[in-house]
């Protein structure tokens, strides 16, 4: 990949994460992004706990992270020009995340042809052999997502996302 292309993907990823109020509120960070793959991180925070007895992060926060990382992989899988909408997201919760540990989510776009893209993702807390959750998602380029994308490109050109 050319450095220019990598810069485009990095800019896109930071736009899609730092430009998303909910992703910012939960503290999502982008570790890396490629053509059809992405790695994101959810740093452990007390205010994300779902069960105060155990200190384990709520499944919903893991769901949001997986949704976001899958979306990022789908977006770049489509070449980074068209914004896809999530059709469905399926998650298997393999085990509770270790309290105090960051949750890392890695997604790969398996196939993106035409209007549909299939993504698979893993969430773990350090050891990839012991995943916390597995996810599978499908995305699609829709009229609504195309319209949003045009607004985004216009906003990017004008250098103002607000």
């Amino acid at each position, binding site marked *: 990949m050319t450095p220019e292309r990598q810069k485009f993907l990095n800019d896109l990823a930071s736009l899609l994460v730092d*430009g*998303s*109020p*909910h*992703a*910012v*509120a*939960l503290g999502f960070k982008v570790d890396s992004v490629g053509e059809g793959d992405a790695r994101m991180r959810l740093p452990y925070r*007390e*205010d*994300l*706990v*779902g*069960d*105060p007895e155990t200190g384990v*992060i*709520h*499944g*919903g*926060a893991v*769901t*949001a*992270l*997986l*949704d*976001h990382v899958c*979306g990022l992989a789908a977006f770049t899988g489509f070449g980074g020009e068209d*914004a896809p*909408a*999530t*059709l*469905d*997201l*399926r*998650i*298997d*919760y393999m085990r*509770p995340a270790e309290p105090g540990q960051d949750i890392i989510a890695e997604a790969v776009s398996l196939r993106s042809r035409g209007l549909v893209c299939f993504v698979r993702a893993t969430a773990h807390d350090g050891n990839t052999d012991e995943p916390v959750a597995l996810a599978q998602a499908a995305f699609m380029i829709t009229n*609504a997502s195309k319209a*949003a994308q045009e*607004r*985004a490109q216009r*906003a990017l050109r004008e250098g103002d*996302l607000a």
Partner: protein
Amino acid sequence: MSETLIKTLLDAPYVSGLGVEFDHRGDELTGCLPFRDDLVGNPLIPALHGGAVGAFLEIVATGSLIVAQPLDRLPKPIDIAIDYLRPARAADVFARAQVARSGRRVANVRVEAWQGRRGAPVATLHGHFLITPKRENSPA
């Protein structure tokens, strides 16, 4: 009492932080996710974050299991499948669950979320949860 466990669920940091509210009558429960700017996923549509909607559906599923039968602990998700039917607009979201089966260890739940019109759902969830029902002779 299911009231205690409902309170534990709603008071959990993540759940209270998301701002989830329950309208709980007997064994029926409707969830509300009041709109807030920091629930927006894509500010250009603007649409709520799919993860926030998914998490809300999961919380309503959990709450509905608690009011369906007396449990010792919070239900734990085994697997969930979320279908996104429409973009969730910058507005309140509501959800109700149907407990398809609640057994001794596992429960099967379906949840539907809507905004302006109940007949136009924005997302649905289907999931399995591990549950720990109270034993009949255990102290309440």
